[in-house]
């Protein structure tokens, strides 16, 4: 009888674990292209916990350097990329140290601060990205 009783309990535990694993993460990956000596998009709003990837599409090296020197990519060679995780909220102006006229701005906000419609759209884009291995991520630009 104990064995018969234990089986459904184990099944329930297993089901609970499965549900937990399949919970989607709200953290997203955003891509900023460095192309033709400009950051595109030049302004981007992301949530705390999101990942931002800069990809250098130019034939020359660039950097992604925080204007207040809080972080710095170092040299990003032609065709290379650099990844940064938004760990705290704030407004971050950055530039290419090699070409100071190249500037960009990141606004990092708490996830719940994002407008619902934008978050919903971004999550849909993120799911779409996961289905396309060649895609780099989704964006929320021009806030």
């Amino acid at each position: 009888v104990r064995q018969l009783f234990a089986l459904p309990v184990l099944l329930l535990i297993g089901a609970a674990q499965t549900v937990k694993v399949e919970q989607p993460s709200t953290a997203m990956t955003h891509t900023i292209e460095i192309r033709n000596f400009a950051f595109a998009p030049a302004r981007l709003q992301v949530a705390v916990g999101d990942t931002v990837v800069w990809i250098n599409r130019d034939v020359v090296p660039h950097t992604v350097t925080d204007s207040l020197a809080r972080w710095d990519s170092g040299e990003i060679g032609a065709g290379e990329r650099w990844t940064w995780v938004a760990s705290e909220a704030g407004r971050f102006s950055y530039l290419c140290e090699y070409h100071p006229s190249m500037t960009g701005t990141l606004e990092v906000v708490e996830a719940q601060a994002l407008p619902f419609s934008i978050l919903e759209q971004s999550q849909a884009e993120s799911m779409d990205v996961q289905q396309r291995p060649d895609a780099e991520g989704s964006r929320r630009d021009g806030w």
Partner: protein
Amino acid sequence: MFRKPDITVLTAAATIALLAAAPAKSQENGPPLNDAQIAHVAVTANAIDIEMGEIARTRGSDERVREFAERMITDHTAVNEQAAALASRLGVTPAANAISGSLRDGAEAAKRTLRAASGADFDRAYMAHEVDYHRSVLQALDQTLIPSTTNGELRALLEQARGAIAAHLAHAERLHASLGSKP
């Protein structure tokens, strides 16, 4: 005291005048430039700024000027390598022409003047040259070279070079202004 290095600026201006006058000269003196000739002008313009950078990275007295010179060498070398790869792929040999020849003559004169300057005078003369040179190349790209190019890949290359030139010009203007005027 006699002040002489402004000759460099005058030489740079003469070089630039030749480049900026490229469309008029080609229309008055002969047929418009073809793609092979445009490629040669672009490659020559890049090569000249690499050579100027080679001088400035050793003779510059201000660290920022030397770093700028290194950046010019890196960037213009990368653009010219891309141009060489494109020409090879297209089976096109860049063709020397009157405009690239004039550019070369002007550059040699500018280099002689730069080599005669030193210290802060050199820094100011080099950066003044870089401002004028990039401004004129940008103008030539916009008004002549890009609109006249028929091959799509060459046009794309020139448009990418334009981004580099515009970024260099902004950087050069800022750095030149920070050096101040002659005491």
